[in-house]
């Protein structure tokens, strides 16, 4: 795998994720964009691990485990919000502000 293209591609994926979080207002879509960011970072680690040894690949496993835990907690919280407001749109969930 070529390092340059792999890094460029993961930077692009990461930027798409960030843009998605900033533009979209649906909690589920936001969460998907965050996952995209994490996976872009995973790709970076894999690409770099070719040069620096196994440490980068090890990190990917940690990231995946953490992402799984985050997904479990995040979806449960989104569900809890949905029960109260029957919406996962951040535009309608605005009880707290000011």
């Amino acid at each position, binding site marked *: 795998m070529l390092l340059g293209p792999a*890094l460029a591609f993961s930077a692009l994926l*990461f930027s798409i*994720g*960030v843009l998605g*979080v900033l533009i979209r207002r649906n*909690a589920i879509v*936001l*969460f998907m964009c*965050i996952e995209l*960011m*994490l996976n*872009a*970072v995973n790709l*970076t*680690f894999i690409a*770099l691990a070719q*040069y*620096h*040894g196994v*440490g*980068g690949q*090890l*990190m990917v496993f*940690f*990231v995946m485990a*953490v992402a799984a*835990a*985050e997904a479990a*907690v*995040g979806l*449960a*919280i*989104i569900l*809890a*919000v949905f*029960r*109260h*407001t029957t919406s996962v749109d951040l535009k309608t*969930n605005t*009880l*707290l*502000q*000011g």
Partner: protein
Amino acid sequence: MNPIDTTTPAGVVLALLPEVVLSLAALGVLVVNAWRHETAEDSRLAGWLSLGGVGAAMVALLWLWGGGASSSGIPQMVALDGYRFFGDFVFLLAAAATIVFSLDYLEREGIRGPEYYTLILLATVGMMLLAGANDLIMVFLGLEVMSVAAYVLAAYDRRSPYSAEAGLKYFLIGAFASGFLLYGIALVYGVTGTTNLVMAGAFFGPGSLPVMASLGLSLLLIGFLFKVSVVPFHMWAPDVYDGAPTPVTGPMATGIKAAGFLALTRMLIVTFPAASPLWQPVLGILAIATMVAGNLMALSQRTVKRMLAYSSVAHAGYLLAAVWTGTLIGAASVLVYLLAYALTSLAAFGLLAALGRGGERDLTADDLAGLAKARPWTAAAFAIVLLSLLGFPGTFGFIGKWMILTSLVVAGQWLIPVVLVLASAVSAGYYLPVIMAMYMKPAREGAPDAPRVPRGAAVAIGAIVAAILVLGVWPPPLLSGTMEIASSLFERAFQ
């Protein structure tokens, strides 16, 4: 105590003893809850067991700390130095206070589910790992262990739409920030080939950073500044602190912020000391922006809980000013201020939890009118706590601010200290009205009796207030102690 050999499993357990004890306690409480999780009595039992776990971890910590634990020289993932032990000490105190405040609160508000205490213990383990992290992998894992538990705690009051929304906001922003942090770790790893803070610092040496490493540092900073709620990454903090159950707001505003600041300081001093021309201007500007914006926004708040939430943003600004120096006395003042702020803020949220009802979202300063007559001790404690947050001479908060000012002036900086003093003067505009309402206004006609602070919480608050006063009047041992602790950070840093 001999240096701990961290190449053996026994050595690793020994080096991580407080964290291991606390994790085991969390699992133990979870197992007990599997059988006993229905009545309020069961919840109380879980609370007392957790408090026992915190006590055991504290004993393990003091044993390690008092024995002068050190490592045998191999680069580790978790540091064995006074800096980590001091952080652990603060987190365990915060956890103990939180558990005591929660015992009666959960019962009163009818929040079911004793797993609450397991989550508090796990969040504390995360804080301890984050503050002790000597490796970027550990920074990430500690941060996530802490945050994932905190997301659940913020949303713990399932019947409250405010709590659920707070949890959602905290989760989305927190995960977003973790993404930045992680990308920063990847880039630093790409340049140096290591994730160890000391080794990466040795790799960078005294020269300027490569472009990719500068980019990595910026992303790491974004991730950290989100977590410690510095302007302009603060917008989530007031909402989350406001919506979460009040006893949870305490550790979120103190422990999590403290862990973030300790890890940030360690990273900047150990790994990026030579890059200070890069990060110092950014941190300086953001510190000023945070002090100004946090205090001004706190002024315009109506409820006490939201006012305290914004004041916590302002305090992040003071702390960031201390981090800005990057010097020994700066690192020591971070420690002093964190202890002062953590104690004071915990007591403030603990008192608020005891005085309010239904999430405390409606409690205004006027609701506290006449408290000095009805409950003189409670009013006195609240007044001392608020004065300490303000930085009034004679309280611990003043020592903390004075220490930060000293470190800034020693570093030859004049603008930031001036802003800090002015911002503190502004903060009087929202702390003092609460005190005036308690002492000078008569209670409103037909207002319900002021609630009594539960006995356990009263003991904890009394101890904290005593500590605030004692350390405020007689701080020399603490100051020299923190200087020594902070120097442990510089010994191993590449200069």
